[in-house]
């Protein structure tokens, strides 16, 4: 089985090729450089593996949550390649990718994942690894206030992701009176294409695939603009666009 995975959802930019469960990868911390880098990374990986696109079984990408622009780049690149070569696509959650990166690093199988979502919020989910080699959502992914996030009932967990780095105080405060014990804290953990490729291999075997146009980002944050109330003449005279990109 051969799967090409890409991820541009956070400050990391990466591509990975899983060839019969061997993963080769390119990974670079490159905020705002993803659009310049990602295709070259893919191209070099394919050359290094001496593979042509027609040898691939599927594509995978980090579908979000993450930076809006970043997850659209990953979705767009995936759509373009998948459409050109009639390849199926496996979208993978970036929060789940963090859980998988954590497992590889520490062997942890219970992970509380948080990505800094800006605007004083986090993208949040809790995952548990089961004996079929699959990540199960214990807490569904969501965008929320770090002071009020919902957490699992009990257990020993590893905390991973940049959300922990940004809001460590409010998040540990939140867990103070819970039955949660944080075993390890990995606040610098970022998702990676290699982790996405491994998750995708599993999903591929279970036939969890979509086509090119269904390779869409998952934003979680959907209230991105507010509708104007009746504007005054003077307000109408100024400004034509509403700015809301984050």
């Amino acid at each position, binding site marked *: 089985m051969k799967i090409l995975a890409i991820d541009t959802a956070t400050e990391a930019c990466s591509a990975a090729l899983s060839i019969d469960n061997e993963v080769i990868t390119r990974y670079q911390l490159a905020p705002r450089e993803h*659009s*310049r880098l*990602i*295709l*070259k990374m893919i*191209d070099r990986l394919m050359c290094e593996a001496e593979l042509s*696109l027609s040898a691939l079984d599927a594509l995978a990408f980090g579908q979000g949550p993450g930076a*809006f*622009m970043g997850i*659209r*780049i990953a*979705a*767009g*690149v*995936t*759509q*373009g*390649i998948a*459409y*050109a*070569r009639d390849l199926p696509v496996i979208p993978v959650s970036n929060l789940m990718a963090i859980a998988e990166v954590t497992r590889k690093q520490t062997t942890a199988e219970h992970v509380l994942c948080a990505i800094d979502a800006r605007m004083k919020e986090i993208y949040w989910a809790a995952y548990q690894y089961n004996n079929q080699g699959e990540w199960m959502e214990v807490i569904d992914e969501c965008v929320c206030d770090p002071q009020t996030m919902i957490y699992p009932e009990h257990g020993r967990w590893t905390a991973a992701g940049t959300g922990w780095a940004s809001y460590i105080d409010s998040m540990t405060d939140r867990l103070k009176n819970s039955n949660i014990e944080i075993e390890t804290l990995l606040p610098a953990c970022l998702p990676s294409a290699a982790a996405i490729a491994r998750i995708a291999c599993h999903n591929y075997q279970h036939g969890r695939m979509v086509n*090119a*146009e269904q390779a*869409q*980002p998952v*934003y979680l944050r959907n209230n*991105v*603009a507010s*509708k*104007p109330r009746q*504007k005054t*003449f003077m307000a*109408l*005279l100024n*400004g*034509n*666009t*509403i*700015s*809301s*990109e*984050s």
Partner: protein
Amino acid sequence: MIVLGIESSCDETGIAVYSSEEGLLAHALHSQIALHAEYGGVVPELASRDHIRYLIPLIKQALAQAGIKKKTLDGVAYTAGPGLIGALMSGASVARSLAWALDIPAVEVHHMEGHLLAPMLEARPPSFPFLALLVSGGHTLLADVKGIGQYALLGQSLDDAAGEAFDKTAKLLGLGYPGGPALAAAAKQGHAGYYHFPRPMVDRPGLDFSFSGLKTYALNTMMKQAEKNLAETVEHPLNAQGLTEQNVADIALAFEQAAVDTLVVKSQRALIQQHCQRLVIAGGVSANLRLREQMGQMVKKHHAELFYPAVEFCTDNGAMIALAGCLRLQAGQMQPLEIAARARWSMQALPSINQT
């Protein structure tokens, strides 16, 4: 050479298939006007989200319409700027990776160059050199065009773009978004002579424009008229701004006449100054019938010719991008393996290509 064109710089997703031998083979467009209408303007994040949903379905549709298999494409052209960065990035990501995966060259196209060359989609295309008046929602400029990529800027708007002035004035008048076509439609019912708007900058030398004063003038006119209506008990119903439907039509007409006159006067001045025989008008506002008509009369007086795109290719579309990209690809231009998107991009920075 058969080229796929992809436009996503603002609020339209436009896809087209253009053949250097046979011309335009197919084009598909998805407009986001309804999506943004309730916000009263384009919301960049919503625009980006919509593009990434519609790009592939529209590409499929255009190729099916053209009766072309994706493997027969020789190149991909996409708008790399200027425009909304997130919107551009959606199109650029799909376009650049599609070209790479099909193993064909990609070329980045300047959105305004696309507009400028759009009249070349017509049966009677202009030949170089020509003078171009670009009037869209974001730009108003006069350029001397010697060839592709050889653009000398002669004048531009110092404040609002012409289309922007149409849009804002239409909004003031309660005519909806986008305002250009709505205002033109209202003006049809207008009577000339009730109001007279100034012609900004026509009495000053040079080829620059200024349109922001017109909308302020429109606002003042509206307020004065509304006061008068209140004092005089008019028999027709008044709208939220205190105007009758006829008032709105009359003000729309006065505005349109002033805007069009200004564009015509400056174009005439440029035509004389540059000793040019051909004038191209392009961009959204070039769909305006009054502008086409008056420009036609002016050009005739100077024994010159006027060119403009079909109405559907005046506003944003994929066809103009496919055409511009095709010309550049034929000249051997192609882009390295990078996704390019720039919010700002000067037209004068474009490489020129030698036409044969």
